[in-house]
Structures are given as C-alpha cells and as structure tokens.
C-alpha cells in the first residue's frame, strides 16, 4: 500500500481544515443549504433518511490493519458500531452527526485516509481488482497506476464540476474483477509483445437507469500517456456532456449520442494537443510510487499444499468447502488469498461491526502482512496467508462469523443499503437479501446450485449492480409500495446485462420466484458444470418466465 509523503499528508490535512470551515459556516447560516450540498457531497457526506451518511474512500480497496482499526474506532465512537462496505471499495457510516464529521475526517487523516470525492459530480474513488498484486492470473499489478490516477484526480481544477459523477476502474488480470466494462472509464492494464505496459481504454459503460457496456476507444495506450489521455476524455465530457437533465448526464449518454466513432475522434483530436505535455508520466514517478508501496516480504516456501493443509482438506468437509469457495490462488508459492464472507445469513450484506473490524485487523497482523482488501462484492480479503496457516485461520474466521463458504454462490449477495438507510431508494434491499439467504441456507443445496451471482439494488441508480447479476433484483416503487423487478442472464465477466423476466413482484414473492428460477435451471442443466447463467444463455428467458409467473401462490401484480 502507498505511504503518503509530507505533501500527500498536507493536502489531506488541509482538506479537513477546509471542510471544518465549511461545516462551521453552514451551521452558522453563512452557507445556504443549496450551496453546502455540492460542497459536502464532494466530501462524501449525504443527508440521509435517519442521519447524514459519510462515505470514506478505500483507494483501490487496500487497507492497512491500523486503518481498519481506525474505521472500527469511528464506527464505535461516531456511529452505532457498524460500517457498511459498499460496491465501490468505500465504507459508509450511516449514523454520524454532521457537527462531528470534521472530527471524523481528522481521525481518518491520521491514518492517511479521507472522504475526498467519494460523491459529487467529480472523479470518484478509483477501483480495481481486489486481488491486485497477488492473483495468480495477473498480467500487471494495477495499483501503482491506480495511485497515479488517485493523485491526478484529487482536486483536479478543471474536472471538479463535471456534468455527473465519474468512475474509473482498472484491471490487470485475465479475469476482469473490476467490472471495467460498466464504468465511465475502464482500463485494462496489458503488456504489449515488446514488453511495454499500456492500457486498453474503455469508455461509456455504466449501470444506473440506462445500463450500457462500454466501448473500446483505444486498444493500446502506452503508460506514459495515461494521464494526458484521461484529460482528453474528461475534457470532451466536461464540455459536451449534458447538463440539462441529470438522468442523461453520464458519459455513456454522450458517447451514444455522438456515436462511439465521433466521440473517439473528438478525444483523439483533443489528445493530439495534450500528448507529450507536462502531464506525460515519467518512469521516475512510477518508481517513486512503487518505492512507497509497502510490499510484503514473502518467505521462501515450497510449492504445493503443505501437510497441515492436506490433512484438513482430507478430514474436514467444512474446511474443504471453505477452501474451495473462499480461498484464492496466489502468485507466490506457499501462499493463498482468503475471502472473508460478509454475507452470513441474517446479516446485512457488506456490514461489519467494530469488533469484527478489530478482529480482522488482528488476523491480518498475525497471519498476513497487516494488509486487508475490500472487494466490490462487499467482502474483505486477507491477501497473503501461508497455506499452512489456512486451517488455523479458518477456525478463527468461523468464530468471527466470517467463514461462510459461499463466495461465488447464490447467497454471496451484493446489495446496496436500500430503503432502510438510503433516501434515494425506492425499496428496501437488505430484508430481501436476508429472505433469500434464509431460503437458500442449506449448504448442500447451495453447492449443488453452483456458481451464481445474485445482486440487489434498491433503486435504478444500481449501486447493487443488479444488471450484471446472473439474477438481478431491482426495487421499484409502485403507488407507494415496494416491488421488485427481476432480471436474469447478466454477468460481470464477460460483461452482459440481464433481461427483465416480467412484471415486478411483491416483497414476500421474491424468494419463491428465485426458487422457481433455480428449479428450471436444475432441471435443464446438462451437467454440473453448466452454470445458471449458461442455461439462461442457452434456453432464453421463456422457461424461466413461465415458471415464475405460473406459481399459484405468486400473486402477480401488473404495473
């Protein structure tokens, strides 16, 4: 992880002082509600249903144990003891007091954290693969470039007031674990045949009310040109993106309206003017960032499963399952990455208590190199665990309630906070997630169903990424009641958008509908390796639709 130098620290400290001043003037009536809104949003502060919500950035998903302990402290001292990990590698606190937010930011600054640009119409927290730097299928570690983008986008003078929010994701592995095709800009770090590092640049993807898969505007952009090219894209968007209608203001709408070809020409024309300018990245800067990244000092371990691991795999079924689902292959022999499931049945997906955060920080220190990752699937990861320690760690995680072996399975539900907390939501998400988790609580059944992503959003802003869930659930409001629209066939990698199966359903009908979808799948699959999403692809919507709406107990309500 990147260690701030004196300048990085000063900028964050000055931001705290600035926000303290803004809050003071707002509370004194010197800044109007309307003016304060964009100012507080640029610092991740929403006024929510019950209280303000503060969103804190976890840049590219990397946390040090002392930072996680600080988050636990904030949850305890300023909130009601819980934090919610979001789908964009942020953590959200749902109960802070407005007057105390400057103090929270000051506490965060002591561990090199902030809430800068976690909301508002600006460049947001840059996200990446939660296994960056450790995944066995990695081509390039994207984190140095993520830090480069973090610094470039922090208080960018020209792009602080864009038409709408702007999200950049970077991926450097074979598998896209950063949802790059559904971001405003997606970057694939790649190595050319001659060894040069560069990026495939994707623009105009996004979810929300107009979901779209992005367009490649450049197959290979050499790393030196990364920032000038981003400036060119942002400038075209800043100048020509729509500002008259916030629902049509994202870059995806501009790309579509201009056509991708013309948009690309505009960007290239702009870039021709910026290329090789002062923002051209220099090798020394990459080296400087790299030198400030604390890298783990791995031991020289033999390849292959150590005896402790083999024994546990043979003797314990629960361990075997957990190992199969929650343990991920590592680049370095003898190590593995472990996913801590924040999706135990009965808990709000992505929530962790202060005690749990402290405990995870301790485990990271004891078994790893003091590092924790946050995934966009709202789980935590211990990236560097000796394989020989896995049985012991498993026991510890079990005691903490973080060992649910459901990564990649139906109950690893991605969910936004929904109507219980969020003032944008049309419907609640968490109770629906919990009802589904309860219905599919049986592990044997869950394993039989196999790989399946189920994502829930409480409104069409799509924070729960429902469009790219194999099963997606979207909360909608009908005449003041909560209903849920179901899509199937979406996927994150390869990026595909789900299709709506039919009229939306009432809250209590959702688990039955999921049951019906699963029933069709289990009957139709040709073999155990054919996943739910493959069967949807093969058969289309019809058999699924038929079964869901044929349910005698399902009272179908038409819009």
């Amino acid at each position, binding site marked *: 992880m990147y260690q701030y*130098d*004196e*300048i990085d620290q*000063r*900028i964050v400290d*000055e*931001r705290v*002082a*600035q926000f303290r001043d*803004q809050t003071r003037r707002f509370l004194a009536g010197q800044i109007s509600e309307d*003016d304060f809104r*964009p*100012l507080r949003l640029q610092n991740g502060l929403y006024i929510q249903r019950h209280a303000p919500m503060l969103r804190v950035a976890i840049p590219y998903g990397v946390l040090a144990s002392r930072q996680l302990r600080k988050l636990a402290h904030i949850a305890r001292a300023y909130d009601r003891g819980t934090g919610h990990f979001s789908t964009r590698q942020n953590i959200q606190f749902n109960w802070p007091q407005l007057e105390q937010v400057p103090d929270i930011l000051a506490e965060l600054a002591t561990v090199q954290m902030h809430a800068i640009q976690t909301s508002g*119409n600006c460049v947001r927290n840059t996200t990446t693969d939660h296994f960056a730097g450790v995944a066995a299928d990695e081509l390039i570690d994207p984190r140095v470039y993520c830090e*480069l983008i973090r*610094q*470039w986008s*922090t*208080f*960018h*003078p*020209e*792009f*602080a*007031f*864009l*038409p709408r929010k702007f999200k950049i994701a970077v991926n450097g592995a074979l598998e896209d674990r950063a949802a790059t095709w559904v971001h405003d800009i997606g970057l694939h770090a790649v190595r050319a045949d001659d060894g040069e590092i560069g990026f495939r640049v994707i623009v105009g993807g996004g979810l929300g009310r107009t979901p779209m898969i992005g367009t490649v505007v450049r197959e290979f952009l050499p790393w030196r040109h990364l920032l000038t090219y981003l400036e060119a894209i942002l*400038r075209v968007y*800043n*100048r020509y993106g729509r*500002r008259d209608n916030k629902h049509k203001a994202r870059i995806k709408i501009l790309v579509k309206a201009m056509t991708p070809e013309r948009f690309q020409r505009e960007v290239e024309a702009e870039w021709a*003017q910026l290329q090789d*300018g*002062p*923002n051209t*990245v*220099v090798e*020394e*800067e990459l080296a*400087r960032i790299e030198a400030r990244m604390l890298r783990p000092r791995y031991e020289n371990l033999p390849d292959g499963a150590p005896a402790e691991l083999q024994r546990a795999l043979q003797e314990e079924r629960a361990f075997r399952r957990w190992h199969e689902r929650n343990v991920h292959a590592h680049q370095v022999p003898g190590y593995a990455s472990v996913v801590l499931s924040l999706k135990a049945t009965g808990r709000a997906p992505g929530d962790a208590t202060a005690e749990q955060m402290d405990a995870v920080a301790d485990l990271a220190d004891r078994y790893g190199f003091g590092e924790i990752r946050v995934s966009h699937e709202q789980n935590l990861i211990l990236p560097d665990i000796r394989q020989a320690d896995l049985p012991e760690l498993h026991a510890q995680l079990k005691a903490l309630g973080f060992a649910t072996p459901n990564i990649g399975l139906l109950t690893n539900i991605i969910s936004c906070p929904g109507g219980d907390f969020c003032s944008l939501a049309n419907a609640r998400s968490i109770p629906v997630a919990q009802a589904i988790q309860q219905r599919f609580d049986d592990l044997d059944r869950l394993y039989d169903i196999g790989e399946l992503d189920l994502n829930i959003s409480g409104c069409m802003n799509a924070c729960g990424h429902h469009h790219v869930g194999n099963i997606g659930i979207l909360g909608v409001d009908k005449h003041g009641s909560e209903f849920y629209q179901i899509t199937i066939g979406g996927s994150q990698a390869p990026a595909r958008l789900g299709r709506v199966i039919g009229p939306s359903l009432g809250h209590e009908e959702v688990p039955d509908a999921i049951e019906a979808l699963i029933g069709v799948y289990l009957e139709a699959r040709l073999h155990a390796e054919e996943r739910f999403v493959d069967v949807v692809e093969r058969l289309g919507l019809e058999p699924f639709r038929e079964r869901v709406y044929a349910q005698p107990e399902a009272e179908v309500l038409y819009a």
Partner: protein
Amino acid sequence: MPDVIRNRRIETDSFLRVESLDGVAPDADVLVPLALLATQRDVLQARSGKLGLWLETADEPVEVAQYLPLLDLVVVHFASFADGRGHSIARLLRERHGFRGEIRAVGDVFKETLFYLSRCGFDAFVLRPGESVEEALKGFDVFSEAYQASVERPSPLFRRRQAAVSKGLPA
C-alpha cells in the same frame, strides 16, 4: 460592474457592459457579447478604449480564438458554480490559444470556487452579491499544494517532486 478581485486585491473596474456602441464614448472600456464582436470587429478595433468579451459557459473557445489579439479581457459568466465548462474554457484560452489578458469569473463566484478557478487560468473575480471579500480571499490559500499541472503551475507535482529529488531536496 461591481468591484473586481485582482491579484488578491479589490480593484475598481472600468469596463462597461454594452450590447451596442450607440452613445458610448470611444475611449470607454467596453465589455461586449460575441455577436457584437463578430459584426463590428473593425469598429471595435479602431476605438481607443479597452475591449472585453462576455462569454457564457456554453460558448466555444475556438470561435473566440481569432479575436483574442484584440481583447484585454474575457469574462466567463457562471450561472451556477457547479458548471465546470467555464473551467475548461479558461484553460483552453490560456494553454491552447495563448491568451495573456485578463480572464474574469463572474456570476456564482464565492470563496469555495476561487482555488479551482485560479488554477484554471482565471485571474480576476467578481463575487456574487452578499459575499464577504475578506472571507473569500482566504479561498485562494486553502491548499498549499496541488497534484496536477495547471495554468498557475504548468508542472505537475510528480515532476516537481522529481526535480526536488535530483537536487537533493527532500521530496
């Protein structure tokens, strides 16, 4: 036009905003819309008073470029401070078209907006009504450093850090 912040000082403004030249003294400093500049270019050029151009954030800098040698001032009007197009206009006028005259932000301008605007090339500001000048002036110094290349500081921090390292200074 009300007083203007220039070089962090309040100065009196001499420009008169006009839609036509009827009855305007030839030595008066005038601020005109793009349409007038396009139709009366020669007349405006022949006057002895200073010439300023009024732009809205939706206007295109490239259309303005041909007139820049005639201009002492470009005003960009922000109907809302959250309209970032004006920021791009100023950068383009400075960095692409080489404009060295005054670029003035007017409209929804107040303390929180000055830091970004000045980095984009604005060097004069008219605060919206009711704002305290003394408070607003502090807005320039909220941050002592910035990462990006800007009009104020064409070298991005990463190049200056590098320069500091090669000179043996602490980064």
